[in-house]
Each structure stands twice: as structure tokens, then as C-alpha cells.
């Protein structure tokens, strides 16, 4: 979480003193990209509880094919971006700050807790919202509950092992 925030500060903060509103011009682009992502989540059916069950029961290759080819595409793209030392269209050098490993407990424990929630709701965070858009409006309750979950983590964070 903290590593992500640092990257955002680099991304939005550069030249922020003289032009604090520059990144706002790009908000419509993020809206458009988000809409494209919501559309892809729907057409690929990865937002479906049924598809998640198929995956956790190892009864279809589909979800593994989707996740595997998504990772492969992203990895090749990242390698190209690094090799070409590309800059973003806002002129910032592109970098992906690595997550800090530490003891690893937060990833194992947090990951397992999320996995249980993923199987129960049949949706990870993106699909929760895409499902609301698709008319499965009860997922609004799941999204609000997810917010409560995130808030609870923030509250209890000093007391859980990382």
C-alpha cells in the first residue's frame, strides 16, 4: 500500500507546484480505460460466480487461460517498456515500484482471506463494481461491505502481523 502511494506521488507530483491541475486533464482517459476494463470483465465472464466456481473446481481451462495470457501479455509489455526506457505521455519516466517483501505474512494471510471472499462472492474488487453496472445491484451491498472490510483493516493494522 505504501509503495503504491509513493509511486503515485512521483506520478502526479512532478511539476505539481506550478501546475497542480495538470493530471486532472487525464481523468477522462481513466474513465474511458475503466469503462473498457468493465466491458472486458463482462465479455470475458471473469465477473461471473459460475466461472470462479469452475476455476476453483479445476473443471475448465478458461480462467487459467485468461489469467495466464493476461500475465504473459503484461510481462512482455513491461519488458518492452523497460528495455525502451519509455516515458508516460505526461513525460514521467515509467517505473513499477516493487512491493516490499518483509516477512511475507501480510501477503500469505491477506491473500488467503481475500481468496475466501473471492470464492464466496464470486467476485474480486473490479468485478464487484462491474456486476453492479450489469444490473446485479445487490453487489452494491458487497461493495459497501468490502469498504467496511478495508476500513477495519486500516483500523486494526497496527495489531496484525506483517
Amino acid at each position, binding site marked *: 500500500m505504501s509503495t503504491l502511494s509513493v509511486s503515485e506521488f512521483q*506520478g502526479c507530483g512532478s511539476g505539481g507546484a506550478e501546475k497542480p491541475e495538470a493530471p486532472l486533464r487525464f481523468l477522462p482517459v481513466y474513465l474511458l480505460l475503466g469503462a473498457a476494463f468493465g466491458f472486458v470483465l463482462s465479455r470475458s465472464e471473469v465477473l461471473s460466480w459460475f466461472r470462479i*466456481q469452475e476455476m476453483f473446481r479445476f473443471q475448465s481451462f478458461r480462467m487459467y487461460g485468461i489469467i495466464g495470457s493476461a500475465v504473459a501479455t503484461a510481462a512482455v509489455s513491461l519488458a518492452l517498456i523497460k528495455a525502451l526506457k519509455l516515458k508516460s505521455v505526461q513525460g514521467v519516466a515509467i517505473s*513499477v515500484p516493487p512491493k516490499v517483501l518483509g516477512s*511475507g505474512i*501480510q501477503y500469505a494471510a491477506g491473500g488467503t482471506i481475500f481468496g475466501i471472499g473471492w470464492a464466496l462472492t*464470486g467476485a474480486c474488487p473490479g468485478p464487484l463494481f462491474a*456486476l453492479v453496472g450489469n444490473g446485479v445491484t445487490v453487489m452494491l451491498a458487497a461493495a459497501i*461491505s468490502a469498504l467496511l472490510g478495508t476500513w477495519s483493516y486500516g483500523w486494526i493494522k497496527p495489531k496484525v502481523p506483517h
Partner: protein
Amino acid sequence: MTAWLSGEWPWYVAGPLIGLFVPALLIVGNKVFGISASLSHLCAAVAPGKVEYFRYDWRRAGLWNLVFLAGVLLGGFLASQGGPHSIHISDATHASLVKLGIHDFSGLAPRELFTWHALLTVRGFVSVVVGGFLVGFGTAYAAGCTSGHAISGLANVQVPSLIAVIGFFAGGLAATYFILPLVIGGV
């Protein structure tokens, strides 16, 4: 053409398209593709309270993420305009789920569990409210979800993300084989 806009895409089309959001967001604004951080940004925006974790400039760190998330909702709405859509799952999964007590296969998620009315039943409440809570708590604890860890993280060859993804599956398998039979079948 219209089949592509309303039907189900094959995995080898859907997967690479999802993967392309990683370079797209980096190129637009040096943003790391991930959804769950926006849950923290929403908390920081709406009710930071006295919690240290939420005391940061959410506009600066995450306004783009929240706008992206609003787009996801819009994209879901646009996708639904092609008409009602049922999921053609494998026969094996269909049989497993019937055995579990699921009989309505007409929507994106079983209506026995995912309607406002079902929310008043134990199995609906556990699926929606308990499941949602665990999604929010777990992704914040693990500092990422399917997009941030499984896609961005694995593509960047990060050990923390590999640990997280193994956790996703450990939790998912445990819930599928031990919790769901109790939740759906039992109560």
C-alpha cells in the same frame, strides 16, 4: 460483429486484452494497474476517522483510481445492453453446483444467493456481506487483489505477489470445498 459485443469472448482474446491495461495505464500516467487500492482511497475520502492508514491525500494518490473504478461500473452497464446473458459453464461444474443446491443458472451469479431478497437468508448474507467484507479486508492486508498481484505483480516477477496469489488459491479452494457446502447446502 454484434456477437463480439454481446457474446462470450474466447480466453485467448479476453486474457491479452486484460493484460494490455498494464502498459496502457503506465503509458498514460505511470499508474500501476490495480483496483483494490481504490477501496482505501474511498475510505480515506469518506471516513478516514482517526485511522493513521487513511490519513493521506487521497485526491493526489487515488483520484485517477476512483475515476477508473467509476468507468468499470459504466463499462459493466454498457456490456449489459446486449441483453440478458447466461454463462455456459462446463457440464462438470453444472453437476457439482446442482449437487450443492444451485438450480438457477440463468444469470451472471446464482439468484438463490445474489438478490436483495436473498440477502435476508443466511446463505445470501454470507455470500454477499461476509464475502464482501473478506474481499475488502484481505485485499487491504495483502496490499493488492487479482489485478494488482496476479496480473501486475506476477508480470513484474515479484515474490510478494506470488505469495499473495498462492494465498488467493488456498483461500478460494478452502472456501469452495469446506465453506460453500455448509453455506449453500446446509442452512
